[in-house]
């Protein structure tokens, strides 16, 4: 398997805090990789650097064979790297449907065209049907529940047909039914060939969904492997439970 994303010796310091410290790992194409670790271990910071929202102090990030030196979220997005946020970020004033269309990464010249073309609506509706949100298409996104917002954000970043999707705690703060739905949607998209990198605290979900699992602690990778192995790795247990 080839690596779709490679992170090498990534470092980020905030003042005296080394949020990410010499962190290296890779994400294979076609895998659902989990990135776990105790609170403050640098998962989200690593996410932000990989997706171009934050500039790294040092280290290399390679996505799809190209080194990403000048990180720019927009360019990465168009190249097929999408992400969601811990606190779902949607556009509350736009309708559910428009939230999808605006994230589809339309080319320059379509800017001057209709707000929603027939093609746009059709694609958005297909996506909404997949996510069982079709009945809410015309509702302002502000009226969605938190769980629905998470689904909508996930659906929206899929509109650009990404190769790699980074999900930052996709099931945090949502009800158990929604966790199952989220898992279903991740699996369905994975089957279609999308690679996932997931930060998640729900260990049951991680253990049944992800392989491999990467464990971060204090900004560095301390373990990597199939979930069954990682689960009994003494270093990992130390990191989580303290020595």
């Amino acid at each position, binding site marked *: 398997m080839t690596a779709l994303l490679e992170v090498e010796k990534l470092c980020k310091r905030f003042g005296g805090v080394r949020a990410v410290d010499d962190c290296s790992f890779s994400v294979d194409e076609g895998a659902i990789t989990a990135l776990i670790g105790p609170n403050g271990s640098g998962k989200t910071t690593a996410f932000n650097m990989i997706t171009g929202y934050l500039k790294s102090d040092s280290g290399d990030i390679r996505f799809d064979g190209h080194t990403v030196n000048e990180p720019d979220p927009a360019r990465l997005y168009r190249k097929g790297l999408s992400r969601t946020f811990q606190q779902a970020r949607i*556009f509350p004033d736009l309708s559910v449907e428009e939230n999808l269309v605006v994230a589809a990464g339309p080319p320059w010249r379509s800017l001057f065209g209709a707000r929603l073309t027939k093609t746009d609506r059709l694609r958005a509706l297909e996506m909404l049907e997949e996510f069982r949100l079709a009945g809410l298409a015309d509702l302002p996104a502000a009226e969605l529940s938190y769980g629905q917002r998470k689904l909508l954000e996930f659906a929206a970043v899929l509109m650009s047909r990404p190769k790699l999707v980074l999900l930052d705690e996709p099931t945090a703060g949502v009800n158990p039914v929604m966790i199952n739905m989220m898992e279903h949607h991740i699996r369905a998209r994975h089957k279609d060939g999308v690679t996932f990198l997931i930060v998640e605290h729900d260990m049951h979900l991680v253990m049944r969904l992800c392989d491999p699992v990467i464990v971060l602690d204090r900004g560095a990778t301390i373990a990597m492997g199939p979930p069954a192995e990682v689960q009994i790795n003494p270093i990992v247990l130390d990191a989580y439970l303290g020595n």
Partner: protein
Amino acid sequence: MSGLGLLRGVAFFGALALLPYGVGAPWILNLLIFTLMYAGLASAWNLLGGYAGYPSLGHAAFFGLGAYAIAIVFEDSVGNGYLPFFLLPLIGVGAALVSVPIGWIAMRTRADVFAIVTITLLFITQTLAFNLRSITDGAQGKAVAVPPFPVDTYGWPFYYAMLTLLAVAMGVSFYFRRSKIGLSLAAVRADEDKAHGVGVRVTGVKLIAFALSVGITAMIGGVWAYYLGFVYPQFAVDPLLTIGMVLMTFLGGRATLWGPVIGAFILVPAQQTFAYHFGASQVYLLAYAAIFLIIMLVLPRGILPTITDRLRHRNKRGPGGQQRAAASPVGNPVQAAGMIDELRAAER
């Protein structure tokens, strides 16, 4: 365009186009010219301050630019009187081009900082107008040649010029709402970083909004200068002008087509009434402040959005609303749970 919307537009502009024929008193036409001017200015400001969510306080700088362009070019003669109107498109395009690098730099800041940066632009422009005496004649001001219009209908050309520019501003506003530019701007307004992150052409649409907004503002400034016949730095580049545009847009409703127009049609006559009753003192400024307070307290989103919201919520309580709630699968846990089983089965 919905039939009703088209009808509304045609009726509005049709009525305004016929109005001079029914109005005898020059002071009423004068009031109408200023109402249309502010409606156009507020609509232009709304393109940037409303749709993009960038609250510029510097628009008066571009208004002054247009005013001085007319005053400088037509200092000595205006020919048959219609020449300055033909220069307006050029002024608009010129101001729009000048604004691109300015907007590119200014729009690296946001919200309150952007407001401060743009108001700085206003004062720089005013200072330049005072001090570049060889071009602007400084505090002495500049006079525009008087057009040879017949006395009876002297105000008409200015009235129709303002009406045309209002139509242009509203046309662009309408176009924004119907195009992906407007969709992208709405995303920028809600969460610019997220919008950038999902590939929205953030810088591009912001610059388009900025350039069109100030281009129209400059053209209106040109008509204003020609109508008054005199241009002084403190009036051509006037912070109060900016505040008027902002206030009217806020009152009527930001990021709406009709909001700025409604705001102008309420505030301009009101301001004139105040000025009439309290003399030409600055007391009307107190009224401005009072209106600002009322908007913040009662209508934080402006007249139009508040009304449409109330209407929508009323409709939701009706039978149609219930239907929509039922159509939402995840809103109903029992139904959703059943659905999950269904999904699971499909997976196996």
